[in-house]
């Protein structure tokens, strides 16, 4: 789950990381009032779950409250990577002497949380990694001991020569690690971590991605979810306990299991079609899930044919068949449907479908070919 910059900052502050004040506005007027309170030049920053805000015009300086109002109005009209900007963060502009990058992610190779720090901050860390990899240090943290003080100091001395700044940065690294662990994060990032002309070390930006699997036990973090910042179809899918990713093709796919779902998409492409989505109904299916899956897929006007590919294991194919029948009875389909079922209870499933005038196939390749042909206007078999 993504959270907003201002939310990540609130968490970081709680763990003691020095961060300049800031408040969130939903309207240009609110932004103006906040700027008046702070006085002086402020930065207005779009709060959206998308990278590249700066390049998209979502981060701007404004010198007077009036200017803040017009800047905020501009930004609140933006769509960044197709997501509308609903909120802006207004924060006093800081004088910057140097910019560094510090971040933690979970790394599958070392199987540990790994710090990445770089004295080249303020820009995209991918760019640094590509062009000047010697400017990034990676440090895996032994989860049994946590980030030790000396490890934090070793990393901090890579960022700063001055011992006071190094000590301040080391403290921030330990606080960031604590925030990361306590929030069930898979990524926590400060970019840039700046030094001021007075020598203070301060976090100017904050980013955090939460492991979805942690949310059940972290209600305070789950409460940070902002559905207005997500695509409506993905919100619906999540609530129905489905994994859904919208794509640009015209063959809607309903599959059980992520690997099989990807393989099905690949096969659609292989036979000349284009998948409209990734959709995994997961392991323990029930008819309700299927109903929701069809609802989400049919809401996409691009979809010209729908393909079910179900390999029953834990998933009972009769559950799926019942779901399909229920969904169609509620909302008759406007596009053709191809169903492939095999595995647990498939005889019952085929019978249910037949009784409701639906055919089922058993071979994956044949089913995909048929769906592609239907979507591209070919004749149904």
């Amino acid at each position, binding site marked *: 789950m993504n959270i907003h910059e201002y939310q990540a900052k609130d968490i970081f502050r709680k763990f003691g990381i020095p961060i300049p004040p800031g408040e969130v506005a939903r309207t240009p007027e609110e932004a103006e009032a906040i700027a008046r309170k702070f006085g002086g030049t402020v930065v207005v920053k779009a709060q959206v779950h998308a990278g590249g805000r700066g390049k998209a015009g979502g981060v701007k300086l404004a010198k007077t409250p009036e200017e803040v109002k017009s800047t905020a109005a501009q930004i609140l009209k933006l769509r960044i990577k197709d997501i509308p900007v609903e909120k802006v963060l207004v924060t006093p502009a800081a004088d910057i002497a140097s910019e560094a990058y510090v971040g933690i*992610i979970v790394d599958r190779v070392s199987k540990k949380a790994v710090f990445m720090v770089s004295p080249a901050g303020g820009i995209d860390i991918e760019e640094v990694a590509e062009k000047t990899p010697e400017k990034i240090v990676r440090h895996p943290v032994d989860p049994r001991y946590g980030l030790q003080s000396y490890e934090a100091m070793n990393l901090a001395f890579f960022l700063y020569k001055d011992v006071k700044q190094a000590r301040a940065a080391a403290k921030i690294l330990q606080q960031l690690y604590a925030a990361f662990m306590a929030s069930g994060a898979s990524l926590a990032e400060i970019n840039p971590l700046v030094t001021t002309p007075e020598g203070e070390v301060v976090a100017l930006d904050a980013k955090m991605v939460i492991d979805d699997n942690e949310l059940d036990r972290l209600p305070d973090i789950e409460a940070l979810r902002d559905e207005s910042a997500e695509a409506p179809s993905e919100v619906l899918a999540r609530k129905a306990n489905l994994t859904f990713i919208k794509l640009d093709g015209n063959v809607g796919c309903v599959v059980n299991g992520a690997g099989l779902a990807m393989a099905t998409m690949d096969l659609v492409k292989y036979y000349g079609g284009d998948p409209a989505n990734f959709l995994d109904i997961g392991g323990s299916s029930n008819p309700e899930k299927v109903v929701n899956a069809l609802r989400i897929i049919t809401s996409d006007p691009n979809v010209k044919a729908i393909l079910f590919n179900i390999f029953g294991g834990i998933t009972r194919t009769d559950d799926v068949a019942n779901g399909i029948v229920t969904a169609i009875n509620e909302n008759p389909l406007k596009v053709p449907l191809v169903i492939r079922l*095999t595995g647990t209870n498939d005889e019952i499933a085929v019978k249910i479908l037949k009784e409701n005038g639906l055919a089922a196939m058993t071979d994956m390749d044949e089913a995909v070919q048929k769906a592609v042909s239907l979507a591209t206007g070919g004749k149904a078999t």
Partner: protein
Amino acid sequence: MSIFIDKETRLLIQGITGRDGSFHAKQMMEYGTKVVGGVTPGKGGLKFETTVPIFNTVAQAVKETGANATVIYVPPPFAADAMMEAADAGIPFIVCITEGVPVLDMTRVYPFVKEKGARLLGPNCPGLISPGQSKVGIIPGSICASGPYGLVSRSGTLTYEVVYQMTRAGMGQTTCVGIGGDPINGTNFIDCLAAFEADNETKAVVMIGEIGGTDEQEAAKFVKEKMSKPVVGFIAGQTAPPGRRMGHAGAIISGSAGTAAEKMQAFEENGIGVAKRPIDVVSLLKKSIKS
């Protein structure tokens, strides 16, 4: 022969009285797996299906039953504790089926299990099956057949699909292993490939990968350097949208975006036949045995 489990495997089931645990316990027992005990705190002393003793703790269960393997069906928030409990009780082979285990939990579980000298399969995996001998997990026994091919996969149902095609084509399996798709898991491709290489009855191996990470690339190198047996492979996710699985920071870390194209190239460069479609695994496997 087979890898990791065989006729002699004495299996414990953690979460045996839960919805998933009880369903699959019965399936495994029907398949012929030696289920020697179950664990559910508070149900110690009762029996599952009138024959299988239930214990409050794994330590007690191991002491009473001599279990040498366990399979875990407990809810995600308790799965890490269940894996560690099993390892601490001295069980050498631990299979965790549970999906949705927080990855930070796994950063603790992994070194713990390793220190205790146990092998962990999963979490978020379908388990494994040695057809005709033992089944641990949720792979449907009906689609498998005994034979000389090994299979290792990161997927669940895609594994079934491939096994199903193999069995239909008369190509039975020594063992089918699902290692799971989570970022941190206990057993990887290389562990399974090495076991298949060492298994007398396995003649060739199928490896089913997915986008994300670099496990398949490293496994491909291992195949070239250390394996005498032929390996064929398939990678799911050729059409998957970039950046939705691991995010850019993961890509930096691994020095690779983990795309399907990369992985397929690594397979080809290291002598692993690459199937374009799942069904193509069958013909590639036949060809690999002949050559």
